[in-house]
């Protein structure tokens, strides 16, 4: 899912619970990292942010958000620390690590290359 070589991420989906169309799971990691770049935030805020920024096209579900966050934590791309939410509840805030920054750059570069490649196929074929 977060393999360094970004080979057609759209088709690399977990088997048991496929996310709804419109939210390619490979892209989810990239989006999370990108959103976290603007500062630490909790899970619900990440989902909201993606929802809003995509003009409500992309809908991040719990079923894919939390597994993706667990993986990001394991990979060491982000750390989690406890904080107080705007509703005064204890909740975990995710913060991008320098490793995560690097990963984001790599993924963005790969993503650009792939989209450009796809674009050129679409234009010329």
């Amino acid at each position, binding site marked *: 899912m977060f393999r360094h070589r970004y080979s057609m991420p759209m088709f690399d989906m977990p088997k048991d619970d496929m996310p709804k169309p419109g939210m390619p799971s490979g892209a989810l990691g990239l989006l999370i990292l990108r959103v976290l770049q603007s500062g630490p935030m909790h899970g619900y805020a990440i*989902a909201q942010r993606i929802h809003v920024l995509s003009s409500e096209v992309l809908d991040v579900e719990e079923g894919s958000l939390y597994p993706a966050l667990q993986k990001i934590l394991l990979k*060491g791309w982000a750390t989690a620390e406890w904080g107080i939410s705007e509703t005064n509840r204890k909740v975990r805030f995710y913060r991008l690590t320098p490793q995560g920054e690097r990963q984001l750059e790599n993924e963005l570069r790969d993503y650009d290359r792939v989209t450009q490649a796809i674009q050129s196929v679409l234009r010329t074929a």
Partner: protein
Amino acid sequence: MEKLMEILRRLGYLFTRNSRRQELESEMDFHREMSERAGRPEVRRKFGNAERLKEQAREAWGWTWIDRLGQDLSYAARTLRRSPGFSLTAILVLAVGIGVNVTAFSLFNMMVLQFLPVRDPQSIVRLQRRSPDASTNTISYSSMIFYRDHANSLSAVMGTMGTGGQRFENDGQPVSASFITGNYFSELGTRPATGRLFDPALDDASGAPPVVVLSYAFWQRRFGGDPGIAGKVVHINGKPATVVGVTPYALASLGGAHPDLWLPLSQTPYFVEGSTALAPTSSSGPVEMWGRLAPGVSAKAAEGELRQLTDQLRKQYPKDVWENEYIRSDPGGHDQIMQPDMVLVMSAIGGLVFLILAVACANLGGLLLARGVAREHEIGIRVAIGAGRGRIFRQLFTESLLLSTLGSVAGLILGYVTLRITMANANAPLWMTATPDWRVIAFTFAVGLVAAALFGFAPAWQIARQRHRRTIVRQTLLAAQIAASSLLLIVAGLLVRAAQHALYASPGFGYEQVVAVDLGQGSHGYKPAEARSLLEQFRTRAQAIPGVTSVALTSMQPLGHIRVSTISNTINGHLVRIFPFSVTPEFFSTMRVPLLRGRNFLPGEEHAVIISDSLARKQWPGEDPLGKQDASGSGPGDVVVGIAANARLMDMEDGDTVQLYHAAKEADMTDLTVLVRTAGSPDGLTPALRALSQSLDPKLFPEVRLLKGEFNSATQSAANIAAVITALGFVAVILAGLGILGLVAYSVSQRTREIAIRLALGASRAQVLRAVLRQFSWPVLVGLAVGTGAAAFASQILRRLLYGVSNLDPLSYASAIAVLLAIFALAALLPARRALRLDVARALHQE
């Protein structure tokens, strides 16, 4: 580096996963609350999935399988506890199957794999002379010293020379002694029970005072464990020597040597008067050579250096060093040095014990299948509430794993007990313990895993797919049990017959009334002419003892183990092992080996040979061998003058009995053994013969052996093997019988209704019985056929190991098959009778 950090983090999650789960759950609950607050209806819709979502998130950690395994295990434990009868049976069956394998492996482990408890056993090597066509396990003292002084790849060289028959004080019984180099005990790091052991500086120096070290057992037996033994002077072969110490109780020695006395090899000429053991004569000699590899040197490298030294030695003794001779090194720090011919024996034993496991597993597989039907309801419910096949398979297999683990533990205990009993009866070295080491434990659990795969896989698959009504799997399992158990029983039958053959069939010579007397004249430095006159006097005076009917001389004592020589020749395309004897003419009448044709040796005859009937038939089939020259193994100019009957003189397990007899020459005299035949029982003759030798030369202390004792020990091993295999065979057959019993009982209980209807409609009891048993007829037939075929194949291998195993021994096969059929019939009929005694009305009402 990043990968490593990730693994560490993952491991961290494993140990903190409970608190992590709470964190994750509270986080996800928060997410849900926020969503609900934002009024997103689809969240409420998915509320039922909350637990599943949380599980999915946790799966990212990669540890859910542990939790599932825990669930499966506790479920399996509960299931097994609920049916203790089944669980106990299964564990017992497994304990037998695994225990037999554990015992066999433990023995192998103790003898071949385990290191001796000595200093740095890994670097000890056994060094033996080899060439492409010759081999010997001993070497001359001078060659050993040569290798010791010149080999840089060896940090130490040790020499041992075992002997029997030393005289201790004036005891009637001879004691055994090992002559060893002074560095032996210090190299092995042996600590004395009392006093000191040998020290090369003190005891190997020329002119060093004579010393002896007692074995612990001898110290206890002869001296009652006298704590002040060190410093006492004792007499060995009449020579005074100071006892310096006692070896420890659980002594670990090289090559499993456990003599009564340990003496310095350098003092051999003192203790054995006239001994030529140390004389720098040739490269062949009586010393066993051991080495310790220098640090960092491989055995291969040492062999390479020793080969160069052998070439230098050849320049000194051009005649005595063989063509292409080299020194072979084998790991020496074990109880047994693994030899190539042991591999075949070991794999044969391994195959047999594995068969027991296979029978046990097939048996258990049948039980599990039958049980699967009883659990149909439970499995059905679990499938109905959404358990996948994979999940059910995993759960059932976990149950099998739990069973096999319990069976392994029971098997380990059973193996331990068997081993304790075996070791107590087999005179095992005292340092050996039956306590399983890590190898045995790992082996046990590996066997348990294999067993679980064998008995659990097929049933779990069948049940998970809910196709357990198919009988084919059960029938196959039954056929496998019958095949394996019939193979074992037939092989057992063959071995019992072989043992009987060895025990009761005539070996071709008379041994009951013969005493062998080894005067040891050669080791006391007798020259041939002196030896001849000694033997001549001994013969005349022995013949005068009342009850003695004849006296003969031979170079090899029948059934003996020392000074045995063989010639391996190819005769008409077959490799044949020939035993060359040098004998006096009285040999044939004394040993009761009849001369079939031709004549005996004439006095003083030089170029005459007598050959055994089998050698005649092998070399000149259909021809008259009398008068022919070039009998295989004979010298140039030797003419065949007689044909002797076949006799298994040297090897009870030798079916070929190829012998070549020369008339004993002057040069042979130093090595001849006296054979004395008596009219009555030879038991009381020993003291008279010993006294006779003493009166001729007081320094001699002869070895006197009754041939019937040698015969018994030679046949004992065959009898022991047969007994063990028979026990294994019966274990297998009883397991298979129980398997049949269970399957028939199960099948009858399944078909109660059908049987009742048949009976109600007027079927005869015999017809019903046939209907019930029909499904078992082909597995029995196929199983028997496969088992018999495999036994025929196995007997081919066994024939190479044991004399008297015949290829197609109809009696063994027939009796084994008859026993099997009887047991199987009994096992099938006992439960089938229930079907016949059925109360038809009640059976039909019940359903």
